[in-house]
Every structure is written in C-alpha cells, then in structure tokens.
C-alpha cells in the first residue's frame, strides 16, 4: 500500500489557483524529492500532507490527501494527532528558544509525558539518530540558539524524530547551511530512509539525485513527471523535465 497519496488535488490562494489537479503516490520507507522552479507550488503541496496550510486564511483545497489510506482532510481527523505521525523540518532552522533538552522533549511534553526516564532516553536516542549526540551530550541544558546553523537543523530533525513519526516532510532542509553541514544533513536523510517515509523539497539537483529514490518535477502548479530518480535525471519522458534537470531553465 502507498504511504502517502494525493488524488486530484487543487489548491487556491484566494482566486489564485496554485496547484492544478495533482495526483501522486508515495511508497513507504522511501525518499521522494520535489523539484521545480521557484513558485511552482512545491512547498504548498508538501504542506498539504501535515495540514500546515490551514493557517493561511485564503487557502482552499479540493481533492483527497491520504496517509495509510485515511483522508487527512476528513472532518473527524485531529490535526494534532496527524502531526505526531507526520513530522516537518523547515528551510530555516527554527529551534525553540529553550535548552537543547527541552527542544527534543517538547513533542513528548505536549502529549503529557512526564516520566524523566522516558524523556532522558528519548533525548539520547533522537540526538544519536540525528548524529548530534556526540557534539552536544555535555551541554544539553544550554540554549539551542547557541548551536551553529547546521547543528540547529540537525536538532530540529532530532526534535521531529523524538515523537516517532512515520513520515518526515522537509522543505529545503539544507539550503540555509554551509556545504559541510549540508552534507551531514544529506547523510542523515540517507540513513533515516530505512525507517521513515521522507519527502524533501530541494533546489539542489545533485542533492535530489544523491538522496532520493523517486523525484517529482513540478511546474507552474502541475506535476509534470514523477518517476525513479535515475530516470528523471538520465532519461525523463517530458521535455520540460529534461530542460530543468539539465539546468537549461529555472
């Protein structure tokens, strides 16, 4: 069964239609890259899966978006529950202005978990998963804002992992980072894909080629092509995809 699925989705911001009849299926434990020129609707489409667009007043959508076969825009879906299953990492690292420790346990605290053993274990486990443990294990009580940008981003990934989601959405997670930090985040994505379904928006073609199993090319609100990454980069069916991945426009 598909992990994520969208069927005939339209999105409007006011009168402006920004997603035009997109359908896509995403397999469990895979990495899918969303690519396409700026403003083509990648972020908007990504944020449909954890309903982050709901906060935009003029947002309106039609169609079906499913996780594990359940329509997430159904009336009796609780968004808070949904978001425990579907984590999100943003373009700009956005740790909370709290300690490293408190950043990681936030997701557990809001679920009402107070047991110190569980919290401690989760902190260690998540930070190890995010390859940050060695760097911060002696300063868990320090402010997360004192970390470098790359460390902050890995902290945000760890924070997301702490609530054990099954899907992680990433919107250009490495674009604000220096090359070394960026490589670390990439490595991390590669490791995580065994246990998580990951969808990543990126403008970096090499990165898409390196980390993803399938790639979806968006253009002006439409999904032009979604296929195995290797095919998209070597032998795309659509000419616009070809032009984009070879850098001839966009």
């Amino acid at each position: 069964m598909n992990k994520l699925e969208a069927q005939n989705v339209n999105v409007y911001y006011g009168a402006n239609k920004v997603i035009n009849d997109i359908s896509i299926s995403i397999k469990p434990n895979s990495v899918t890259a969303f690519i396409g020129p700026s403003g083509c609707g990648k972020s908007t489409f990504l944020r449909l899966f954890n309903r982050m667009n709901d906060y935009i007043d003029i947002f309106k959508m039609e169609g079906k978006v499913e996780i594990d076969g359940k329509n997430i825009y159904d009336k009796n879906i609780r968004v808070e529950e949904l978001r425990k299953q579907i984590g999100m990492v943003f373009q700009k690292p956005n740790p909370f202005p709290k300690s490293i420790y408190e950043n990681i346990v936030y997701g557990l605290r809001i679920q009402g978990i107070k047991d110190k053993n569980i919290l401690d274990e989760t902190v260690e486990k998540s930070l190890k998963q995010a390859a940050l443990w060695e760097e911060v294990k002696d300063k868990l009580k320090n402010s997360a804002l004192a970390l470098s940008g790359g460390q902050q981003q890995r902290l945000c990934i760890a924070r997301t992992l702490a609530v054990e989601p099954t899907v992680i959405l990433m919107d250009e997670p490495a674009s604000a980072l220096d090359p070394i930090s960026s490589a670390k985040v990439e490595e991390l994505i590669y490791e995580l894909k065994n246990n998580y379904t990951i969808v990543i928006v990126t403008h970096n073609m090499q990165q898409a080629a390196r980390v993803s199993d399938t790639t979806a090319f968006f253009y002006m609100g439409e999904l032009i092509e979604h296929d195995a990454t290797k095919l998209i980069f070597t032998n795309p069916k659509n000419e616009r995809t070809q032009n984009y991945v070879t850098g001839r426009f966009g």
Partner: protein
Amino acid sequence: MNSAVKNRIKDNAFKYFGIACTSFGLLMLAIFIGNILIEGVARIDWDFITNFPSRNPEKAGILPALVGTLWIMGLTAIIAIPLGVSAGVYLEEYGKKSRLANILEINISNLAGVPSIIYGLLGLEIFGRILGMGGSLLAGASTLSLLILPIIIVSTREALKAVPKSIKEASFAMGASKWQTIWYQLLPASFGGVITGIILALSRAIGETAPLIVIGALAYVPFVPASPTDEFSVLPIQIFNWISRPQKGFAINAASAIIILLLVTFVLNGVAMYLRNRWQKKVKW
C-alpha cells in the same frame, strides 16, 4: 559646498538639536527631583513612615496612605494582569478575523485616550454604587484596572507579535494545539515585553489620583486598611491633601511623601528591568 558636506552639517545640526531637547527634559526632571530632595529628605524618618496623619505636621505620617498604595498596587495587579494578558492573547491569537474582535480593538485604542477622571465616574457608578463596593480598596483597584487594561492589552499583543512566526509553525508542526503553543512557546518568548507593559501600566496606576478621589477614597484615614473592603487613602491623595494646606510644615511633608512615592515606583521599575534582562538573556533570536 558639495552635498556630502551639506548632509554632514545637517546631520550634526540635528544631532545637537536632539541632544539639546533631551537635556532640557532631563534638566527639568533633575531640578524637580533636586528641589523635592532638598525640601523633603530631612523629614523622612521611621516615624514619618509609621505615623498616622495628624493636624500637627511634625507628627503626621504616611502609614495609611503607603499601605493603601501597596494594597491598591497588589489588588490592581491581581485584577488587571490576568484580564489584560488574556484579552491580549485572545485578540492577537484567536479573534483576529472576527467582527467582535475588530470592534473590541477599536474601542481598546480609544479607551487608552479617555481621561482618567471619566474612569473614576464609571468606577463610582459600577463598582461603588451598582456592585455596592462603596469607596473600598476593591472599588479603587477595579477602577484603576479598567484604566490600565488597554495598556496591558496593547503591550501583550505587541510582545506576541514580535515572536517569530517560525516558532509558532515549529510548535504546530510538532503536534501542539493552539493553546499549548501559546502557553509553552509564545508567552514565555514574549515574557519580557509583557512584563514591561504590566509594569508601565502599574506605574501609571500608582500615580493616579483623580479616579480614586471620584470613587470616594479618603484624604484622612486614621487606620491601616486591613482588607479589600476597607476604605483607604493612597500616597498621591495624601500628597495632594498636604500640598493644599497653608502651613509650611505640610509642604515639607508633601515633598517627603513624593520621595517615598518615587522610591516605590523606582523599585517597581527596577524589578521589571531585572526580570526582563534575566529573561532576555535566555531568549535571543
């Protein structure tokens, strides 16, 4: 003369003009405080603080007024802080789109400009007469709460607005509800701004005289108010009362009482600054 030079001259001219304006304000304040200090400091002793008012200026003290001011401050804080902060949170985070919120918003901005004596009349009618509180501490604190609510509401909203949107998004994306996001993220992150607004508002309340006189605060109180339903006086009223007496001795007493009132205000502001700095060390964007 080329334009760069001209600009620099203008720049400097403006700078010195600004300095002059600032110094003028500071100078006036310094003269005022210096004057008060010269006149009043010598009169301040333990007796002055622990004595009741008296017809004899040398024996008169500020005890009931000082205790009244502290009571009023405390009660006003208890009433106005939860109300003001909640209203600010509501308007900023919940009510943004509703018509009701729009109407409230316009009215709150208007309320901030209403002369304080009008609040006194409102308090006299609502708290004093309809709710039967008379000229009690509770009536006074309720009236002053009304007066400072707009300040607290507006500063709470400003402080919440200053929290980056990314923090809110991160919290929601972690599965937090709106309330959890406000409680665990927005309020702690905006604490500095909120507390500043609260202190500013309370400092204003301490200095208010007119609305309290209107609701019936007493000028002569021969007892220390012991419960919120007691009648009371406050320092500004005591000062006002003394200043309007012909004897020189009372003028000195008034100066001394002003020093005490200023001290109370400074302490309050000091606490605010301390809290804010402590908090801001932790929160930096």
